[in-house]
């Protein structure tokens, strides 16, 4: 039976989670441009293959950050041998290498994250966290509940915006007060919803829920 399988992907969600987390941690320590580039390319291609529009803006954001990273390198790491001059300002080798390292680190982090979220659905990830990585059931429940709340919060947000429009106010919040007219009702509704969901879960024996064990014979029977 299909529903018994965690995922039909080549890489299980748990393994994918460890892969993404490991590469992100590696990006913190690696200082070789070639190695960082070698990490970016496959993840970039895979994320675009699986995610396309979903992850494209991640790369736009990374490109937007590039001038800021370059300016940072120019002001604080501009030393070494002379490389070139831009607008009469000398650019030294260390400025270029600092820029490349930080930019590629951000690209590794962005591309790995983009690949992970485009390859797996949120529910596959939550199941993977609990069943493969043995996260506590409460944490897995919180994450699953968070993803379930997303469309509801989006709907609530739309309703508040509609009410604001009908009353002649700006649709999008610009000041702190306007921000609170969105944040306060959204948080209150979410809290109320979470409270009563929690009560319902407790009444259904959430605390007593153990790990589901299926014998190999049962597994074989389901898979027929």
């Amino acid at each position, binding site marked *: 039976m299909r529903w018994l399988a965690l995922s039909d992907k080549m890489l299980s969600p748990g393994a994918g989670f460890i892969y993404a987390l490991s590469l*992100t941690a590696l990006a913190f320590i690696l200082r070789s441009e070639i190695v960082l580039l070698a990490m970016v390319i496959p993840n970039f291609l895979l994320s675009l293959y699986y995610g396309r529009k979903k992850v494209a803006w*991640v790369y736009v954001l990374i490109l937007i950050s590039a001038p800021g990273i370059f300016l940072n390198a120019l002001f*604080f*790491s501009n030393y070494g041998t002379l490389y070139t001059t831009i607008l009469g300002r000398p650019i030294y080798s260390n400025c270029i290498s600092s820029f490349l390292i930080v930019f590629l680190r951000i690209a590794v*982090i962005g591309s790995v994250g983009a690949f992970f979220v485009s390859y797996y659905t949120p529910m596959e990830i939550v199941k993977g966290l609990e069943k493969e990585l043995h996260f506590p059931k409460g944490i897995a*429940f919180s994450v699953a509940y968070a993803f379930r709340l*997303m469309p509801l*919060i989006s709907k609530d947000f739309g309703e508040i915006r509609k009410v604001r429009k009908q009353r002649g106010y700006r649709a999008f919040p610009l000041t702190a007060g306007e921000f609170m007219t969105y944040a306060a009702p*959204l948080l209150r509704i*979410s809290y109320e919803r979470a409270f009563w969901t929690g009560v319902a879960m407790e009444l259904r024996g959430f605390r007593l829920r153990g790990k589901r064990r299926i014998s190999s014979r049962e597994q074989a029977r389901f898979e027929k």
Partner: protein
Amino acid sequence: MRRPSYTAIDYAVLGAIAVAFGIMFAPWWTVYYGLKSALGPIPAKLITYGLWFFPAPLAAVILKKPLSAFMGETLAALVESLIPNAGGFTNLIYGLAQGAFSEIAFAAGRYKRFGAFISALSGALAGIPSVLLDAVLYSSIYPLGYMIYIIIAVMASGAIYGYLAYLVGKVVK
């Protein structure tokens, strides 16, 4: 320290906080980069960084249980990691560290004080690992004087948002 006993209600509330802030965090990157380009790193950090520390004091003020600040911050960071954004899994690493430092403030109050001062302190403490991780990852190591300004700006931002988290926590509960 009391043994933390979490019910399904607590986990659901943590989930609600995680999704609300996970959604807010993802576009917040754009706000941060925009402000950094327009105003420079210190004002950008002062205005934006505190929001990333918000879930820790908020969760603690609402739940009033040991480890609630840590879990609130970590879960929001986990949800943010699972939404496509430029930070990817660094969000989770930052979230773990910030949550642990925020928790120190409530642990110092022996989990009996969840007032405005402790919440602001919790937000301010979360700024420390944030600056340290920035230094490692983004090579944001500046001359000492400038570095001190950055630490002050990030901790002040954390304190302001920590205080706001206390106010929001009171309103929500």
